[in-house]
C-alpha cells in the first residue's frame, strides 16, 4: 500500500510550478503589504501569518530546481531545502490561517497571485501527508459517501417532500432535457433548508425548467479545499457526468463559495477539457431572470440591511453587481460595508478553515475584521449568499453577542415573490 511521503510532496510541488509562479517569486521584494490585506495577520498581529511566507515551500522548490542560479547554489548546498519538519510546521500557516480569500493577490504591489500559489502549495502538503485531519476526513467522506458531511439522498428526499408539501410545488428530480441542473451543498441541506424551498418557488414563478439529480446532488468540493487535484477531479467528474446524463444546458452552483470556484473555474482544467454546458452561481441566474423581467416582487425590506460578498463569488469570480441589483429589488435601506465587492474582507471561514476544527481560534480571530466592518455600518441584518459565510457570520456575531440575524439573499427574494394568479 503506497503512502504519502515527502518525496511525493516535492514531486507534487514541482508539478505545480509554471511561468506565473516563476514570475511571482522573481518579483517578491518582501515588502509585507500582503500581510496588511490578510485578516489572519491583521487581527492576530502575528507576522508568521504573512501570506508570502505561507508559500515558502513552493518558493524553495522553485528556487533550487527551476533557476540556473538556484540549481548552481543547491549543488553547492547553499539553498534552503524543504524538509518534512518544515512541512509539518507550515501546515498551520497554509491551512489554519488561510481561507484562500485572494485579498493578498489583489493588493500585492508587484502583482503576485499569492492565493493561487497557496492553492498550489497545498498540493504538496496533501501529497506529503501534511493536511489537517478535518479536511482529510471531509475528503474521504465526500469520495466514499458523496458528501463531505456524509449526507445521503434519502435525507434530502425527506426535505424534498417537506418542500413539496409546504409549497404545493413539485421539486423535479432526474428530469432530462431541462434548462438547469441545480446542485445543492450539504451545509445548506442541513442548516438552511429554506434555500431549496426558495429556488423551487422562484423557478416555478419564473417558469424555469430545472431538476435535481440523484446521481449527484453535491456541489461542494473537498478536494479544492484540501488542495488536491485528484480528489477534486473525481468530485467534479460526478457533477459533469450527472449533467451530461440529463443533457442539461446549464448547471447552477448553489449559495456556496468554493463550490462555484471548483465547478466554474477549476473543473474544466481538472478533467482536462471544456464542459459541454455552462455553469452559473444561483445569484447570476436570479439576476438574469430579474433583468429579463421574469421575477415580479412586491413589498420592501425596510430595516437597515448590509451585505457580505463571499470571496469566491465577488473577488475571485467577478459576481458583484448581480447581488446588488437583487438586493435593491427587495430592500430600500441597503447600506454597503465600507470595503465591499472585490475589496470585501473575508469572513474567515472559507478555503477549508471551517472544516478544520484545529483552526477554530484563528477562524474567530479573523472574524473580528468582519465584526469591525459590521460595527462601522451597524445594520439590523446581514445578507449573504454562501452557507459557510452565513454560518461563520451567525456564530461570530453570536460569540460577540451582537444581535444581528443573517439572511440568505435567495431566500429573501423568494419571500417577496408576487403570488401567481
Amino acid at each position, binding site marked *: 500500500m503506497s503512502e504519502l511521503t515527502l518525496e511525493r510532496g516535492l514531486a507534487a510541488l514541482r508539478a505545480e510550478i509554471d511561468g506565473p509562479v516563476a514570475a511571482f517569486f522573481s*518579483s517578491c521584494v518582501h515588502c509585507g503589504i500582503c500581510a496588511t490585506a490578510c485578516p489572519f495577520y491583521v487581527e492576530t498581529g502575528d507576522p508568521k501569518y504573512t501570506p508570502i511566507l505561507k508559500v515558502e515551500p513552493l518558493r524553495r522548490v522553485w528556487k533550487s530546481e527551476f533557476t540556473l542560479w538556484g540549481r548552481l547554489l543547491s549543488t553547492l548546498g547553499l539553498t534552503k531545502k524543504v524538509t518534512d519538519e518544515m512541512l509539518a510546521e507550515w501546515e498551520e500557516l497554509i491551512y489554519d490561517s488561510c481561507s484562500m480569500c485572494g485579498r493578498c493577490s489583489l493588493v500585492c504591489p508587484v502583482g503576485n497571485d499569492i492565493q493561487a500559489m497557496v492553492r498550489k502549495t497545498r498540493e504538496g502538503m496533501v501529497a506529503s501527508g501534511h493536511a489537517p485531519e478535518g479536511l482529510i476526513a471531509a475528503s474521504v467522506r465526500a469520495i466514499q459517501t458523496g458528501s463531505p458531511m456524509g449526507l445521503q439522498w434519502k435525507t434530502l428526499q425527506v426535505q424534498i417532500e417537506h418542500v413539496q408539501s409546504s409549497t404545493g410545488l413539485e421539486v423535479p428530480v432526474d428530469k432530462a432535457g431541462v434548462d438547469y441542473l441545480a446542485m445543492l451543498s450539504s451545509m445548506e441541506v442541513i442548516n438552511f433548508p429554506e434555500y431549496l424551498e426558495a429556488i423551487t418557488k422562484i423557478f416555478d414563478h419564473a417558469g424555469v425548467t430545472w431538476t435535481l439529480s440523484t446521481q449527484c446532488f453535491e456541489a461542494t468540493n473537498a478536494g479544492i479545499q484540501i488542495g488536491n487535484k485528484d480528489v477534486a477531479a473525481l468530485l467534479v467528474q460526478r457533477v459533469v457526468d450527472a449533467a451530461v446524463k440529463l443533457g442539461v444546458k446549464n448547471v447552477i452552483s448553489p449559495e456556496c463559495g468554493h463550490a462555484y470556484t471548483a465547478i466554474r473555474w477549476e473543473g474544466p482544467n481538472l478533467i482536462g477539457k471544456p464542459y459541454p454546458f455552462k455553469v452559473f452561481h444561483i445569484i447570476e441566474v436570479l439576476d438574469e431572470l430579474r433583468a429579463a423581467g421574469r421575477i415580479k416582487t412586491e413589498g420592501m425590506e425596510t430595516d437597515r440591511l448590509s451585505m457580505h460578498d463571499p470571496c469566491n463569488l465577488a473577488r475571485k469570480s467577478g459576481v458583484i453587481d448581480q447581488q446588488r441589483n437583487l438586493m435593491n429589488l427587495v430592500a430600500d435601506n441597503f447600506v454597503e460595508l465600507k470595503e465591499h465587492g472585490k475589496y470585501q474582507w473575508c469572513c474567515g471561514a472559507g478555503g477549508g478553515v471551517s472544516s478544520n476544527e484545529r483552526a477554530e481560534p484563528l477562524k474567530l480571530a479573523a472574524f473580528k475584521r468582519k465584526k469591525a466592518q459590521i460595527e462601522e455600518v451597524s445594520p439590523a441584518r446581514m445578507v449573504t449568499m454562501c452557507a459557510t459565510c452565513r454560518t461563520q457570520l451567525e456564530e461570530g456575531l453570536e460569540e460577540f453577542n451582537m444581535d444581528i440575524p443573517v439572511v440568505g439573499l435567495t431566500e429573501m427574494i423568494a419571500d417577496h415573490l408576487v403570488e401567481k394568479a
Partner: protein
Amino acid sequence: MSDPMDFLLWTKGPAFEWAIAIFALGLLARLLEIFVIGRRPNYAEPRAGEWGPGMRTVFTRSIADPGTFKSAPFNVVVGWIWHVGFLIVLLLFIPHLELIKSLLGFAWPGLPNPVVDLVTAVTLVALVATLVHRLTHPVKKRISTVEDYVVWGITFLVVLSGYLAYHRVINPYPLALGLHILSAEIFLILLPFTKLTHIFTTVIARWYNGASFGRRGVAS
C-alpha cells in the same frame, strides 16, 4: 588598480563590459525561465479577455487601493518617493543621459543639475527610512532575508556614491566616480540573481495577476 585614474579607467572599461555581459546574460536566462515554462491551457470559459485586464493591472497596481494605503501608508508613500526619485536621477540626470545615448544610441532631454541633486537627497533619505522600516516593522523583520539587506545596501551605495561624486566630497574625483561606477556595476551583476529582477518581472507578474482576475471578470 593602484592609482585613482587606473581604477576609473578599469571601471569604465573592462569592468563595465563584464557587468553588462553578466547582467544581460543572467537576466535573459531568468526571463526565459519564466516564459518557456509558461502556463497550462485554461479550459474554463472566460468571462472577459486576458490581454486588456492584464495590461490594465500592469499600471493600476502601482497605485495602492485606499485600504492598503490606510493600513501601510509608509510603504506606499516612501516606496513611491524613492522609486520615483531613483528613476528621475537615473533617467533625467544629464551625464546619465550621455551614458544611455552611448549604449542605446538615443536619449532625451534631462533636468537641470540642481533639481536632480535635490531629488537625489530626498531619495537617499527615503531609502534610509525604508531600511529603518524593514528593521523595525514586525512583518518585514520576519520575512526579510540577508538578500533584502544586501540589495538595499547596493541600491543605497549606488545613489550615495553618485551623490558624493557629484558634490566632490571624496577626493580625488576619479576615485569618487570610479566608486560610483563600480557600485552601479555590482548592482547590475547582482540584478539577475536577486530580487532586483523585479525591475523586469513585475510587469510580467502583474500581467499574469491581472489576466487571471480579468478572465474571471474582476478589474484588479
